[in-house]
């Protein structure tokens, strides 16, 4: 177990810059999730940490030691691949034992460690099978077992759940969380699924176009997104954005002047801004207390809640969540109220404006 410090990491493939100036500090025992849209460089960053890709610039320190130029095998990390990368010609036992054999541990030690990992991951009865004879979830557990058994300094996970079906993904997510609680290792986890990020992480690193957009706990990112990208990326359905000018009386007015909305209390802004509000913080209300009205275009009824998709008078799309089973019908004009405490404001450059 160890901490990790990245300083000014840059990585280019030829003329293409994939990572630019990544600075990150991961504490010992922390579960950090890299999240971002595809192509944001999150997998490359993980491979750079693993030592499978060389950095173009910057340094990597593990446990205070500079490992920037060390080979993957020498860094003492373990990685779970998206494809699991189990050796198809070896039994589950040999798959898990392979790294230990390479470390030249005594046979009894290997046996003991493999058995312990197999018990923990409920793989004992499959030890003699080849990976081809296992289900997706079992293969996943073998891949995790292969990492756990080595007692690595840091665990690296590269989208490990994306090949599982929805139900198994939820179950494995819980197992991963309890695994982290049990062995307490430092874990770095890459995913494009923000639900995985929110549920697993101590801290989330949001990446976009090779840069870190924001680092924070899941709730920090949810409640106080630093910029438009993070605000839009975290949360599902995504945050509503309404663009406009700060007009007279400290209200946001849309370019066509048809909609005028309150700003978050205490913020001072001028010029062009974007107002953000999550669907769960907009609610239908009586016409008297309404901030705006939406024309409902689609209603999704999920039983426990409903989503209304509609547009404001200026045409801006707006989504809202209602706890009611049947809040409105398609084509209705619904008065809505924005929770003032939950409003976000962003300047023309996309950065958050805080009170």
């Amino acid at each position, binding site marked *: 177990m160890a901490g990790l410090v990245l300083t000014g990491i840059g990585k280019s493939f030829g003329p293409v810059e994939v990572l630019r100036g990544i600075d990150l500090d991961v504490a010992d025992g922390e579960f950090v999730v890299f999240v971002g849209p595809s192509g944001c460089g999150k997998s490359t960053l993980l491979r750079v940490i693993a030592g*499978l890709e060389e950095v173009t610039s910057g340094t990597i320190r593990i446990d205070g030691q500079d490992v920037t130029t060390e080979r993957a*095998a020498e860094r003492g990390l373990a990685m779970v691949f998206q494809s699991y*990368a189990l050796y198809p010609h070896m039994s589950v036992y040999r798959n898990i034992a392979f790294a230990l054999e*390479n470390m030249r541990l005594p046979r009894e030690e290997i046996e003991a460690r493999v058995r312990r990992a197999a018990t923990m991951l409920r793989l004992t009865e499959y030890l003699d099978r080849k990976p081809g004879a296992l289900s997706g979830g079992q293969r996943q557990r073998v891949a995790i077992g292969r990492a756990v058994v080595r007692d690595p300094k840091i665990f690296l996970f590269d989208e490990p759940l994306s090949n599982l079906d929805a139900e198994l993904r939820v179950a494995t997510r819980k197992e991963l969380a309890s695994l982290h609680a049990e062995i307490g290792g430092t874990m770095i986890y890459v995913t494009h699924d923000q639900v995985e990020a929110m549920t697993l992480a101590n801290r989330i690193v949001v990446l976009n176009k090779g840069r870190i957009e924001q680092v924070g706990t899941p709730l920090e990112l949810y409640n106080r997104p630093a910029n438009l990208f993070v605000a839009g990326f975290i949360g599902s359905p995504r945050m509503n954005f309404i663009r406009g000018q700060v007009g007279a009386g400290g209200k946001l007015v849309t370019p066509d002047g048809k909609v005028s909305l309150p700003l978050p209390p205490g913020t001072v802004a001028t010029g062009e801004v974007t107002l953000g509000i999550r669907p769960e913080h907009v609610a239908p209300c009586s016409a008297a207390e309404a901030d705006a009205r939406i024309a409902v275009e689609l209603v999704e009824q999920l039983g426990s809640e409903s989503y209304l998709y509609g547009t404001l008078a200026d045409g801006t799309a707006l989504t809202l969540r209602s706890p009611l089973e049947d809040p409105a019908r398609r084509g209705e004009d619904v008065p809505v109220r924005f929770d003032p405490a939950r409003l976000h404001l962003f300047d023309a450059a996309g950065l958050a404006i805080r009170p």
Partner: protein
Amino acid sequence: MNRIAMSRAASLLRQTRRPGRLGWTDILSYAYLALGVVLMFGPVLWLVLSSLKTPAALLEFPPSFLPLTQKTISVPGHTQPLELHRVRLPDGSVKELAQIRRIGIQATMIDPANPAAPAIRVPIEAREPVREVAFAWSNYTEPLKQFAFGRYFANSLFVTLVATIITLLINSMAAYALAIYEFRGKNAALLMVIGTLMIPITIVLVPVFLVVTELGLNNSLWAVILPGAATPTGVFLLRQYMLTLPRDLIEAARMDKASEWQIYSRIVMPLTLPALAVLAIFSIMWRWNEFLWPLAVLTKSEVYTLQIGLNAFQGELQTQWHYLLAMTVMTLAPVALVFVFLQRFITTGIANTGMK
């Protein structure tokens, strides 16, 4: 088990496009397949049958398909067995008679059923030899005694096995480097390897011969084995197969602290087995049938391989066809057996490697 196989084969041979009906497409398909069988197996079958013919039967014109010999019969009062002929007698009847002697166009015949009767003189156009199928096994037994078949066979076996092992080892290592590593000049190296395919052996024969002579390897089996150990075909075939292995596996092995040698030997080699099997079969066939290069470097008969040994039957003035054919069959047999037993691997392997 055997009966099941037989009935399966029988039902396979009675397959039709629509069950129970023989359409014209079926007839065409079967005719085409039969033609294929004749084209493929005809020459081999003829070779095997001819190898069992006596020298006289081999030179016969028109040639016969089956090994036929003159039927002879022992007649009391004659020490040697006599040739049996079917004779058309002047009265028009046909009778089988034994020939005592022949002078010019007249043959003196005797009835084997009635040896006491006087001999009959017959013009030779009126008689036709009675022939029977007889296998001249001596074609095989004689040379196996005189010709050092065992030694040549052992030499061929040694060359084939050792060369195949070395070929597999060297080619797989080269292919591993060209498939797994990224380095400057990788494509140039690959192009050069493939480029050597365009140079026929006849062109490099003399330079390679000089090198081999300089190394003092002449008349040693290593002179046959070493120059052809690295084959461009093999490198290319294995590389293409290794490219299909997921990169993740190799990276996982690196994370698992495997050395490059361990990745090669414990991950990549076992997963490349289908392609290795194909290359092994090719190499065995190439080496077993190799002729020109061994002929150039092997001049002493102790180190002859089978192919060179066979050449000894072919003299400048005379060729001992019956021995040559028999020993050719003996030479073909091992490769044919390899094919019969490994045929499944060859087809699946070739399909997997994308080689045709």
